């Protein structure tokens, strides 16, 4: 076993025969020339089918109310909040890969930053559906926004749910700006290469008249650095707010200061997993092996392992603190997690988030794309189960035995989860054929630097 020491055997970040022209040709061809193909079309059809399931669910929920879900007192939060936390967490990893790697000048980010940023935008957009629908009367969601109205009612600024609203709005808009600023020069390339007039106008309008002037590049690099620098604390603050939704409550298992860092660890963990789930098929589907190679996959797999160990440490710290406190409600909740009716959720979480990721210590596993893909899917599943466990095991048996009760999902709970996955992939698949999925201008620069400097 040659743990974590395999750099020499890996390919270079970008294939040695790549030039600015070949980068432009290959990557813009995915958007402008490559036929849609049965793989892409069948994936999109499946995703759209699930999206229609979600739309039907939303329609039925608006007509009937949140009672179509299995939630009730005492388990008043269940699938919807689990789905929300799961999706927004996936977005975090995308921002982190892109922004932190920019700030730390990691040259290999050029191949995965666009993918990660667009993943973030779609994951955050999908996540926002759940808390709004969970409101009960979703059409009044704008009451969260402070505006002078005739009721003279203002938002409650001391509520963690209000903080959440501001966090999601800021995060969604900053993510869109971050994605868009990086896209502008690539949109200009598409404008200049588009054969049809309609496409040239479409990309031309989006490119805002970009010409690549030296001073414009300098402003763009400056604003990218600003956005990256702002995004890192934004990621940490947004997911801390999500965690505060829980730790502000007094329930055993929720009322804990470990939650914000613990949630951030989980967010990065599932975000890296989703980057792998998207990158591994995409590099084959769009023939991007020259830019997205073993080195990128291995690097993200290592990041996923590191974030996973941070999550595992948090599990250990949480369990230790519970027993160390000797608080009887906390201890009862923890024993319930181990041996209660939801024990299978707890132990499955341990299998997926603790045990299986240890395989990534082995170089042979890290370099096997199928294995990494399967482990990443397992991590996504495990992180969903973890949020479900955190939410339900604290709610179903609290202080008073008379208010204990089980949660059983309905068909609609599952339809919303499946539908949100469908919507995410539908957005992603459409985006991947409309916009260059790798950053052409960054890869051009990389090709130039590598082919001049590197032996």
């Amino acid at each position, binding site marked *: 076993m040659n743990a974590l020491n395999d750099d020499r055997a890996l390919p270079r970040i970008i294939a040695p025969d790549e030039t600015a022209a070949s980068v*432009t040709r290959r990557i813009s061809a995915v958007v402008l020339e490559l036929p849609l193909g049965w793989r892409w079309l069948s994936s999109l059809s499946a995703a759209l089918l699930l999206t229609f399931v979600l739309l039907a669910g939303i329609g039925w929920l608006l007509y009937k109310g949140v009672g179509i879900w299995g939630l009730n007192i005492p388990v008043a939060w269940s699938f919807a909040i689990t789905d929300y936390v799961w999706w927004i967490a996936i977005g975090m990893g995308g921002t982190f890969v892109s922004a932190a790697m920019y700030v730390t000048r990691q040259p290999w980010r050029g191949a995965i930053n666009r993918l990660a940023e667009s993943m973030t935008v779609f994951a955050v957009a999908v996540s926002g559906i759940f808390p709004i629908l969970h409101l009960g009367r979703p059409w009044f969601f704008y009451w969260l926004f402070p505006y002078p109205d005739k009721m003279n009612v203002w938002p409650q*600024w001391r509520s963690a749910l209000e903080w959440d609203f*501001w966090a999601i709005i800021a995060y969604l808009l900053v993510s869109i700006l971050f994605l868009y600023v990086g896209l502008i020069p690539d949109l200009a390339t598409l404008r*200049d*290469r588009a054969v049809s007039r309609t496409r040239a106008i479409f990309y031309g309008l989006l490119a805002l008249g970009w010409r690549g002037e*030296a001073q414009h*590049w300098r402003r763009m690099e400056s604003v990218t650095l600003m956005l990256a620098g702002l995004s890192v604390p934004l990621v940490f603050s947004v997911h801390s707010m999500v965690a505060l939704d829980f730790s502000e409550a007094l329930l055993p298992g929720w009322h804990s200061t470990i939650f914000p860092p613990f949630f951030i660890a989980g967010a990065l963990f599932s975000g890296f997993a989703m980057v792998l789930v998207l990158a591994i098929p995409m590099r084959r589907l769009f023939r991007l092996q020259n830019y997205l190679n073993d080195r990128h996959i291995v690097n993200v797999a290592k990041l996923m392992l590191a974030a996973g160990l941070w999550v595992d440490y948090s599990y250990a710290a949480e369990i230790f603190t519970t027993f160390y406190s000797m608080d009887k409600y906390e201890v009862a909740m923890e024993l319930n997690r181990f041996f209660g009716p939801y024990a299978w959720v707890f132990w499955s979480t341990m299998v997926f988030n603790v045990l299986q990721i240890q395989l990534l210590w082995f170089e042979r596993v890290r370099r096997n794309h199928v294995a990494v893909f399967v482990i990443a899917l397992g991590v996504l599943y495990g992180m969903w189960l973890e949020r479900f466990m955190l939410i339900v095991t604290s709610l179903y048996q609290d202080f008073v035995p008379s208010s204990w009760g089980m949660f059983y999902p309905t068909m609609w709970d599952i339809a919303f989860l499946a539908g949100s996955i469908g919507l995410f992939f539908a957005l992603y698949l459409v985006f991947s054929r409309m916009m260059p999925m790798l950053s052409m201008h960054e890869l051009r*620069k990389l090709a*130039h630097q590598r082919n001049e400097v590197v032996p």
Partner: protein
Amino acid sequence: MSKDVMYGLLAEFDDAEHLRGAALRLRREGHYTRIEAYSPYPVDGLADALEKPRIHVPFWTLIGGILGGTSTFALEWYSAVIAYPIDVGGRPTFSWPAFIPAALEMTILWAAIFGVGAMLLGSGLPRLHHPLFGMPAFQRASNDRFFLLVRAEDPQFHLLSCRAFLESLGPLSVTEVGP
């Protein structure tokens, strides 16, 4: 094409180092001041070689952050203390620690919006048309070619001498850009 209706002279180069060297000579030896350089990816030191003025993106990002944070905090104070005070067991209405989260998020959001706004407006974007878009060769500026442009409005600009100077820099071609 007379000088009045001309936009400038455009020289095309095939790589980034060549472009930077030519830009440096154009600025230092030709004493031209209205020079623009175009490249398909950011070339380190190119704007410095052209002695371009400082950019103000970080400054406006800071201003946006300060404005976003203070205005949100002020709004929270107004609504929770003046407009709609809620007495929760006698606790202070001005509970400022609870106002930090929304103010923090808006600091970051406004900073980002101001930064992007400063980048676009500072660069004169968005812009629907530009004389260079009329040049077929210029389409490769977003792909693999590098360009230097001397504006006709430059006080040093004389069509023949400028063309001769640009030719001496070893470009692939020198062309006139119409209005």
